């Protein structure tokens, strides 16, 4: 009995002061028009698959390719993307999937890091994420990941920008409503990297988050900034159980 009570307490503490998660949890795809939904679902038409194919080629390219250490991605990378961002003991910090790939590229391959949003970095991330397609998001926010999680949680509900709105206002309190003509989703990270029609290219989750900062006229954090990473971890926790669907297609 006492143990149960302690457990309940502990579960409360884990979410301490996080806004309640949207119920029922729905992926962003749910809020798309039927045309984009169909495009995302069609492996021959989804433009994101071009990046996946490029990533597959890169996987085996070069003097010391990814494949040399990781073998067949379908096996070695299955489920990996669903666990990111995570605390990486070897690196001693929390990294997202792109950051983990960067670490292999510089640390294991001895090659210069790819620039953020470069086609190669997106292609490898999309290829690795694809190996977790349909698998539920399952990140850990305990131990050394805790402060990063808390930073993301706190930022998520802080009013920011000239428009003075917080993420929670749109994605927890007003999902399902429309901004002019655009439906607001629950803001889950499951589709990313995703092909965005407005960009005419694939982009990372960080690029999408920067667009939300821009939308409320807030200073956009740089790529790789701790705030973006913290938000990514918070979003992954918040979307726990939702299936990965990268490469998604978005407006």
């Amino acid at each position, binding site marked *: 009995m006492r143990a149960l009570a302690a457990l309940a307490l502990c579960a409360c503490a884990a979410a301490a002061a996080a806004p309640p998660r949207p119920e029922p949890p729905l992926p962003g795809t749910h809020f798309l028009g039927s045309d984009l939904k169909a495009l995302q679902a069609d492996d021959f038409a989804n433009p994101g698959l071009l990046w996946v194919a490029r990533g597959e080629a890169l996987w085996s390219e070069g003097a010391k390719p990814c494949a040399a250490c990781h073998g067949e991605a379908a096996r070695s990378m299955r489920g990996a993307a669903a666990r990111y961002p995570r605390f990486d003991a070897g690196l001693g910090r929390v990294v997202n999937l792109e950051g983990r790939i960067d670490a292999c590229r510089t640390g294991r391959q001895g090659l210069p890091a790819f620039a953020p949003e470069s086609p190669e970095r997106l292609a490898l991330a999309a290829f690795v994420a694809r190996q977790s397609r349909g698998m539920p998001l399952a990140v850990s926010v305990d131990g050394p990941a805790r402060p990063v999680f808390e930073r993301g949680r706190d930022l998520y509900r802080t*009013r*920011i920008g*000239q428009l*003075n*709105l917080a993420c929670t206002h749109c994605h927890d309190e007003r999902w399902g409503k429309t901004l*002019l003509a655009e439906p607001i989703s629950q803001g889950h990270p499951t589709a990313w990297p995703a092909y965005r029609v407005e960009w005419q290219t694939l982009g990372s989750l960080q690029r999408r988050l920067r667009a939300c*900062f821009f939308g409320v006229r*807030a200073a956009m954090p740089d790529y790789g900034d701790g705030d973006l990473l913290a938000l990514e971890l918070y979003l992954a926790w918040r979307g726990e159980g939702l299936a990965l669907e990268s490469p998604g297609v978005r407006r």
Partner: protein
Amino acid sequence: MNADERGWAVAGLCVVALGCAPLPARDEQGPLAGAGDAARGRAVFVAREGGHCVLCHAAPGVAVAGDVGPALGGIGSRLTPAQIRFRVVDITRVNPDAVMPAFHRTEGLSRVAAQHAGRPVLSAQQVEDVVAYLATLR
């Protein structure tokens, strides 16, 4: 009866029985600039570079609008211009959790992008214009 309720009762008595000036309401604000122009206010309401209120509010005669906030048809009968102004300037003074920007406020904001820093979303005159427009929605 707690102190608050007593306060209201006294104020009510004062207004009804004695006809003395009502206490200043807490959700009203006087003009910030010269008289507003409703036609210009409508432009502020729909324009992206203006208030872009249509992102969240429907209004009569506006073709495409969002529904994050309530439709504003009839707002001019529900609220006085002073009450509308109070809300447009900074609606968090009415409801701290309101999902609406503060349109004429520069203090206490966080992480404002450099190109917008120190400036309110709408100028004093734009606030007056949009208030004049909303007052016509009866």
